[in-house]
């Protein structure tokens, strides 16, 4: 039962809080009606929704169409907490949870997942009257955030990302994809413009892959335990990035990590995947594959070193490298030098990233994105991800010599990812990539993956069978793998592990994630110490990393294209 209020697109006028645009999600029709009436009495603009899925679609279609979301905890199609996370990460809207169950543990869970408030049913009018405070609070914080990200990196990233993504439109094919792209492009503009803080538009800091990488690196350097926004900010040393930006980002990151940790057991399967290093060229170029243990240097490594974060950390790193993904495809062929460069600088992921970025920008753009392009379509079509993935993923891989090499090193990883959840797909992907990259030798990978696989509990049963079969495969011939949908994705993941896979991985990972929550992936990454993301490919996907909803991440980290993929895939 979706009742759309007309004209909800109009932003609040000056009589705040009147006109507040509220989206109510509840499977109980009685409550929907009551809440609608109550909110109307508060002079709010109400839109009701009986399904979480519909709600997310609504939110995505109209990015600025709502100011706040009120959602029930128990819903049939999707857990309220999950919806909460998605909204928080993707749209960054304040979300209020409600339930007839007021147990402390539930309330705590709500807050943990980022809820602004937790109301108990039956809900009183006065409680609803005050919800505008959450909107106001967020607005204030956002204003501060807007200022910061004018950083070159972000702009560059977004720009290059935009171009690249435009080319590779995701087949995903929803109109939302294109709509998203437009939106993302617009968002980027807005963000860059440092729009008037007092405007109703919510300008957000765009956490590009590059930026995120820096962030993760900083976090790793400081030590996850001792990390603090100020420290991170100092380490990152990005002009115009404010402490608030970092703080909110850190919070999300933490959430993501904690989630990954839970999934850690799921991921183990992936670890087993150890991709066999692409024997030749790619590996050579990538040279980066260091023994799994050498990950620490890499940005990725940083993340992995954190025991707690495990997956999260890793994925994050991967993400940073995400930008490079485009390069991955390309680099394999040529910028090997570049890649290798990165490796040595593992510590300086940033620099490596930069180099990648550069190379990416130039060389990769065409190549990498091309590969991605093919893959991205796959990515975006979440529903058909398996199929597409296989098709798409492999194609790019094949052309690239290096990449082909990367057989799905970690079939298990991929599987895991797939299983885990769609959203997690992304993170897994990153993990895989990182893992793949890091492991110079298949053996390493294998070791790593098994661990991961354990962590990654395959959530998606669909992929389970596939993964099982795959893990044993070190696919050099990615093409073969392409056949199976999930296999494909897996392969990609595995294959991408190394250089090649990187490129394809992102896509694969993405796809997988989409299919299944990608938590597991992150975990898998943890284990691996992703030493080198050499593969640019990995980089691009990394942005999606970890957050439970890769989708959400991509918004921040990835170019629009990534968002598309994620968005589509997340809720499939």
């Amino acid at each position, binding site marked *: 039962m979706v009742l759309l209020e007309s004209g909800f697109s109009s932003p609040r006028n000056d009589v705040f809080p009147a006109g507040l645009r509220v989206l109510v999600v509840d*499977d*109980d*029709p*009685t*409550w929907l*009606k*009551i809440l609608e*009436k*109550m909110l109307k*009495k508060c002079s709010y603009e109400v839109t009701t929704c009986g399904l979480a899925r519909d709600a997310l679609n609504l939110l995505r279609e109209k990015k600025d169409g709502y100011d706040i979301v009120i959602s*029930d905890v*128990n819903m049939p199609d999707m857990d309220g907490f999950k919806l909460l996370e998605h909204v928080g990460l993707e749209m960054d809207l304040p979300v209020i949870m409600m*339930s*007839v*169950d007021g147990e402390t543990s539930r309330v705590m869970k709500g807050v943990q997942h980022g809820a602004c408030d937790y109301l108990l*049913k*039956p809900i*009183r*009018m006065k409680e609803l009257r005050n919800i505008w405070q959450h909107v106001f609070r967020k607005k204030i914080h956002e204003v501060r955030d807007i200022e910061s990200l004018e950083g070159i990196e972000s702009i560059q990233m977004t720009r290059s990302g935009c171009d690249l993504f435009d080319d590779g439109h995701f087949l995903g094919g929803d109109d939302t994809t294109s709509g998203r792209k437009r939106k993302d492009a617009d968002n980027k503009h807005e963000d860059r413009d440092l729009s008037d803080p007092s405007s109703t538009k919510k300008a957000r800091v765009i956490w590009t892959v590059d930026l995120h990488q820096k962030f993760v690196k900083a976090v790793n350097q400081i030590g996850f335990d001792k990390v603090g926004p100020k420290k991170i900010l100092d380490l990152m040393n990005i002009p115009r990035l404010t402490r608030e930006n970092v703080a909110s980002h850190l919070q999300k990151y933490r959430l993501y990590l904690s989630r990954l940790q839970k999934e850690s057991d799921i991921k183990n399967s992936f670890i087993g995947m150890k991709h066999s290093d692409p024997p030749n060229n790619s590996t050579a170029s990538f040279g980066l594959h260091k023994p799994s243990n050498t990950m620490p240097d890499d940005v990725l490594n940083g993340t992995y070193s954190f025991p707690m974060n495990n997956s999260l950390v890793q994925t994050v790193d991967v993400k940073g490298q995400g930008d490079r993904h485009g390069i991955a495809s390309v680099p394999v062929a040529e910028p090997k030098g570049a890649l290798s460069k990165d490796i040595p600088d593992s510590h300086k992921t940033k620099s490596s990233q930069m180099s990648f970025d550069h190379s990416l920008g130039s060389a990769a753009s065409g190549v990498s994105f091309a590969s991605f392009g093919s893959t991205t379509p796959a990515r975006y079509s979440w529903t058909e991800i398996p199929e597409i993935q296989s098709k798409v993923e492999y194609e790019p891989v094949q052309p690239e010599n290096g990449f082909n090499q990367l057989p799905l090193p970690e079939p298990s990883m991929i599987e895991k990812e797939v299983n885990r959840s769609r959203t997690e797909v992304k993170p897994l992907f990153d993990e895989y990539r990182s893992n793949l990259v890091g492991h110079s030798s298949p053996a390493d990978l294998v070791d790593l993956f098994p661990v991961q696989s354990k962590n990654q509990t395959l959530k998606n049963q669909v992929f389970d069978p596939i993964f099982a079969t795959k893990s044993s495969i070190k696919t050099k011939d990615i093409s073969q793998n392409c056949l199976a949908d999930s296999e494909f994705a897996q392969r990609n993941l595995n294959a991408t592990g190394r250089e090649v896979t990187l490129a394809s991985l992102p896509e694969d990972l993405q796809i997988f994630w989409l299919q299944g929550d990608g938590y597991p992936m992150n975990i898998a990454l943890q284990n691996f110490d992703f030493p080198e993301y050499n593969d640019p490919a990995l980089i691009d996907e990394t942005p999606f990393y970890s957050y439970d909803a890769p989708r959400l991440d991509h918004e921040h980290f990835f170019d629009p294209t990534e968002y598309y993929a994620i968005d589509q895939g997340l809720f499939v």
Partner: protein
Amino acid sequence: MARRMLDASNQGLLLQFWLATSSLSKGKTRMDRNRLQHQAASMRRSLFDQGYLDEPFIQLEELQDDASPNFVQEIVTLFYTDSARLIQNIEHALNSRPIDFDKLDDYMHQFKGSSSSIRAKKVTNECTVFREYCSAENAEGCMRSFQQVKQDYAILRRKLEVYLQMVRQAAVSQKA
């Protein structure tokens, strides 16, 4: 026993109400109208006193206004359909073997949420008891509790019906 007596008193009210309404048709007098409203108020009070409806129920009534004059009625109707379905599901789940307690808990949670929408205190409380038995996987306790829930629910429905009718009549008479 006590319950029956209460019912009787309610029925008494109901009777009065009907008498009043019938007199209305003969000729609406202000006195009759007032009496009707009085009846409605006291009926409502009795519902509250007996714990069948919560004070917040009044809030529901407050939501009713010119824009949606039948708001309370719509809500209650929605509640009826939803809760009837849930009761059926619960019955079914209770009668199946082996009992799926998770599902039962789920249904009951929904039912609890539903009854809280009209602020039915008693039913909601009984649902909590049921859920406790459920989590303890006590089939016997669940059965018993559910019987209680059904009873309370049935009574609630009856009263709501009556109440609504009174309200409707009062509204009609007011318009006249």
